[in-house]
């Protein structure tokens, strides 16, 4: 019965239009829209990865080997298992382009392919031509295609000739699209694509040099991938298997994690919007105090009234959430070409229902969480309110069941977000952080009110009417101090946290770098070249230090004759292959923590010195036997020492070092780090690459730049995600300022009547805004800093450094925004003639 009446009352009240609810609708729609859009883009990328799995991988399945090609038996098995096979080899090298006296050098990731490539998808070249033609041999010079970025860097034109190692290639086209590029993962240099056969005389693929081979397989429809995988593992030692079900696992995981993280950022934005929603409802209900009191006088029960307003807010919530969902669904589709162009993988941008459902649920729950409280306060409005001036609804605490319901919905929202995002820990911590910020901000708002009230009557301030006025309106009753501090504070907290994360991500590489970083990493130094190479560099006065070590790579397969993963689980050292070196004597800077180094002339059974920290984590101790597969051969060595290895110094750090006789027989090369003066780097690069075409020099600065670019991209994505929060925060601010216009106008009129000039009044308004802004900003610096620290430490796993500039800028921005919003809405009150205003209130 009461529902029908409540419904009718609600309908009559809503006839008045939605004018007072613009902020409500905007906050809800933006919050929901941002989350829906982020989810839709994430889903689009996932969809693209799924649909095009085989194209991205370059085959239905792929087997990857380190430093070797498959041997005859292995190749026979691969050929027998697949309908078609494409073999490719991948390594880093320097491309050298000479024109006249000058030579340009560029680090490149070379891929050698056979004529079967690509099994799936197509290579796009500019000018358009078949790959067959582009890579073919003309006048004894093989063709090659290159990433346009590298072409530009080398200053080359199509038709000109460059060198890889000791082999000339003719650039026949720019490589616009390589269908399986996403599967290759992170590369330090842009791509050069050639025929593997053409590399034969380059001197780049020798035993012991660093290269990977990959066999892409086209399989018969319906082949059991898991069974084939098991078989492959048995047949080909050390092969890494991937298949089309997850063609680019790195990217898929990255997109998932970044997407989920951005949804959390979006949820924080929704929380900021929630404050706006809550204030809008509060303002609406406080204007309705008289209506409520009248209804009660006429015999309406609290329940009917609560229901009536609940229905009204419900209708508005549905409207706001729907608007948000439309926004969130349309924006990604609208920007689809832009999004796809910036992604290394195909994206299938269409309408995905799941992210919309997710965002919709968040929106409804957030609206409920933020409106139940003010709605429940209508129960306190007494009929008697009509007969005295009781400052409107929204004092006091609602009944316990409403507080309980709000808490329950909050927990439900957090649980759902944890479930949807798959980032349980991060979600719970973020929610906890937001809740704590919320409580701290409410506390701060109350403290500011209290202090303002105290200060307002302080003797020192007597005579400074503008200041006292400002303090009075912050500290006095009915002020919007709490809602402004809360919305601004939450918004600034989110932005400050994002700012900290952004600054830390961008600065991470530069900061984690040691004071004195090497200038170059040199790889693929052949044993016969090592002495001449080292002597040559050391003779150069600009070179301060050259360190070198033999370099092999191996996969730890067994520990004490048991499969390694049984002993050490999924420790990172077991993921793929690791560098292994050998040394007769302990290196100068090595700190042996357990056991001892073998005698320098030791030739007995293999012994290994393991990295201390990793050994402890993996449960390896002195006397254990470790089996390492190197180039297809198992070597079992006893752990006779543990030593500290510092991987952060950008020097040479190996998990495992063995006695020389254990490894010397295996084909291998050496790596070196070269410390030199910056000005000499160009000359050194030139000399080394001229004398030793097979040696690849990686300039550390370039590598850092490349990694920084990737991190900056992530930081930018997070910042874009926070943009919605920024806009929402702005709307809430404007809403709060607009809501205060009536009160400001009234104050200004009275003040003018008792003799205040406009300057005094304006000063007081500005001070008021600044006071609230500073209070909110101070909390935001601390809370945002803590949140940034938590994310960097627990999610990104790196050090955190508080960035005061970013934090201050954000807070100053917030204060200025409050000021501008406050003052923009002060012109009306200031300009109004007192007679008009006061008369309206008679």
């Amino acid at each position: 019965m009461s529902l029908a009446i409540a419904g009718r009352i609600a309908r009559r009240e809503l006839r008045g239009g939605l004018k007072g609810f613009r902020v409500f609708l905007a906050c809800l729609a933006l919050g929901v829209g941002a989350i829906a859009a982020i989810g839709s883009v994430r889903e689009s990328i996932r969809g693209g990865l799924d649909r095009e799995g085989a194209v991205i991988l370059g085959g239905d399945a792929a087997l990857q080997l380190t430093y070797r090609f498959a041997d005859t038996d292995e190749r026979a098995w691969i050929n027998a298992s697949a309908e078609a096979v494409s073999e490719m080899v991948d390594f880093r090298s320097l491309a050298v382009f000479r024109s006249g006296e000058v030579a340009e050098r560029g680090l490149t990731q070379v891929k050698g392919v056979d004529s079967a490539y690509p099994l799936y998808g197509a290579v796009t070249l500019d000018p358009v031509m078949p790959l067959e033609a582009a890579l073919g041999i003309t006048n004894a010079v093989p063709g090659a295609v290159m990433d346009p970025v590298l072409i530009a860097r080398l200053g080359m034109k199509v038709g000109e000739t460059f060198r890889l190692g000791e082999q000339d290639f003719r650039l026949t086209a720019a490589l616009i699209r390589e269908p399986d590029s996403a599967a290759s993962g992170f590369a330090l240099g842009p791509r050069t694509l050639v025929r593997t056969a053409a590399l034969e005389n380059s001197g780049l693929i020798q035993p012991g040099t660093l290269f990977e081979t990959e066999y892409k397989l086209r399989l018969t429809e319906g082949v059991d991938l898991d069974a084939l995988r098991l078989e492959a593992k048995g047949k080909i030692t050390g092969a890494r298997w991937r298949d089309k079900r997850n063609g680019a696992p790195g990217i898929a995981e990255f997109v998932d994690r970044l997407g989920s993280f951005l949804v959390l950022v979006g949820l924080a934005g929704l929380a900021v919007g929630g404050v706006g929603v809550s204030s809008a409802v509060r303002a609406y209900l406080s204007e309705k105090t008289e209506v409520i009191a009248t209804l009660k006088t006429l015999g309406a029960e609290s329940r009917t009234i609560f229901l009536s307003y609940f229905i009204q807010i419900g209708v508005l919530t549905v409207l706001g959430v729907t608007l948000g969902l439309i926004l969130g669904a349309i924006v990604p589709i609208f920007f689809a070409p832009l999004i796809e162009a910036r992604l290394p993988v195909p994206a299938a941008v269409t309408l995905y229902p799941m992210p919309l459902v997710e965002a919709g649920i968040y929106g409804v729950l957030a609206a409920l969480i933020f409106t139940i409280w003010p709605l429940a306060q209508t129960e306190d409005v007494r009929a008697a309110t009509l007969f005295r001036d009781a400052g409107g609804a929204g004092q006091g605490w609602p009944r316990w069941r409403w507080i309980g319901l709000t808490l329950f919905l909050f927990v439900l929202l957090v649980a759902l977000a944890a479930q949807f995002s798959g980032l349980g820990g991060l979600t719970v911590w973020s929610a906890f952080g937001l809740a704590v910020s919320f409580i701290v901000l409410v506390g701060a708002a109350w403290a500011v009110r209290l202090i303002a009230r105290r200060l307002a009557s302080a003797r020192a301030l007597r005579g400074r009417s503008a200041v006292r006025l400002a303090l009075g309106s912050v500290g006095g009753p009915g002020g919007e101090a709490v809602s402004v501090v809360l919305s601004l504070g939450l918004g600034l907290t989110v932005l400050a946290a994002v700012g900290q994360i952004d600054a830390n991500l961008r600065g991470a590489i530069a900061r984690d770098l040691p004071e004195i970083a090497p200038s170059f990493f040199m790889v693929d130094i052949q044993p016969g070249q090592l002495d001449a190479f080292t002597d040559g560099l050391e003779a150069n006065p600009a070179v301060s230090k050259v360190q070198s070590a033999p370099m092999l790579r191996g996969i730890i397969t067994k520990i004490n004759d048991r499969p390694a993963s049984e002993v050490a689980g999924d420790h990172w050292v077991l993921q793929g292959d690791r560098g292994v070196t050998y040394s007769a004597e302990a290196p100068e800077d090595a700190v042996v923590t357990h056991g001892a180094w073998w005698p320098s002339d030791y030739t007995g059974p293999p012994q290994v010195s393991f990295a201390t920290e990793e050994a402890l984590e993996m449960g390896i101790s002195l006397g254990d036997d470790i089996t390492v597969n190197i180039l297809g051969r198992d070597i079992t060595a006893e752990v006779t020492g543990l030593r500290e290895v510092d991987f952060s110094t950008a020097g040479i750090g190996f998990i495992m070092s063995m006695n020389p006789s254990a490894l010397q027989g295996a084909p291998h090369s050496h790596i070196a780090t070269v410390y030199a003066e910056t000005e000499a780097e160009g000359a050194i690069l030139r000399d080394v690459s001229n004398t030793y075409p097979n040696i690849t020099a990686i300039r550390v600065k370039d590598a850092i730049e490349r990694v920084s670019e990737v991190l900056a991209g992530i930081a930018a994505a997070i910042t874009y995600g926070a943009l919605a929060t920024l806009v929402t925060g702005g709307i809430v601010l404007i809403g709060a300022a607009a809501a205060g216009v009536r009160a400001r106008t009234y104050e200004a009129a009275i003040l003018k009547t008792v003799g205040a000039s406009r300057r005094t009044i304006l000063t007081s308004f500005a001070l008021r805004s600044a006071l609230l802004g500073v209070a909110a900003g101070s909390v935001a610096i601390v809370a945002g800093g803590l949140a940034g620290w938590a994310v960097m430490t627990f999610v990104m796993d790196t050090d955190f450094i508080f960035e005061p500039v970013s934090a201050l800028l954000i807070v100053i921005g917030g204060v200025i925004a409050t000021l501008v919003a406050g003052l923009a809405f002060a012109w009306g009150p200031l300009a109004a003639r007192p007679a008009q205003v006061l008369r309206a209130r008679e």
Partner: protein
Amino acid sequence: MTEAILSLKDATLSLDGNAGRVAILKGITLDIGRGETVGLVGPSGSGKSSLLMLMGGLERASSGSVVALGHDLTSLGEDALARFRRGHMGVVFQSFHLIPTMTALENVATPLELAGVHDAFERARAELEAVGLGNRVDHYPAQMSGGEQQRVALARAAAPRPDILLADEPTGNLDGITGQAIMDLLFGLRDRYGATLVLVTHAPELAERCDRVIRLQDGTLSSDEHAKAAE
């Protein structure tokens, strides 16, 4: 009548209403002498409040002149008017119009502060005691009854010892007994400080306590009578 403290010459007021421009005051010419107590009466909507607003410089005349204490209010800017009111004009309204975010004491102290009085708060306290509210200085308007609020408003208007007190139906929102008390206070203040008082009222018995009664009818003066006792 000695010297005119307030002098209006052919003052008119037109305002933009919903149905176009409305002439509200249609040429008022009037002199009020220092120390006079003037009752302003007339039917509702005749323009009493508007005339009072003109006198206080709270509204700008559309034409004609309004001269108070030798200052032509029509030529003063918004801020100059505000500064002029300090110490010269005290206004009391039917709806009290206290600043809701200030305590009683702060409300009363504000005009004193604006006028640069160094012991504004001490004087404000004394003023509140004088209207019988010495025990409610720290209360906010919402915590006081209508009668109490109006007493605060009276204290606020009177605190800077203005030359002219303007009161617009100060008892209109109050019950009879409370209204009576307010009126006694108002006339008491006038007697004590010798201020000129212009009082808008509906009540004939209040009009009788004035030296002079001006009647407004549809935006024009319809009569101007000096009480016999004062002659």
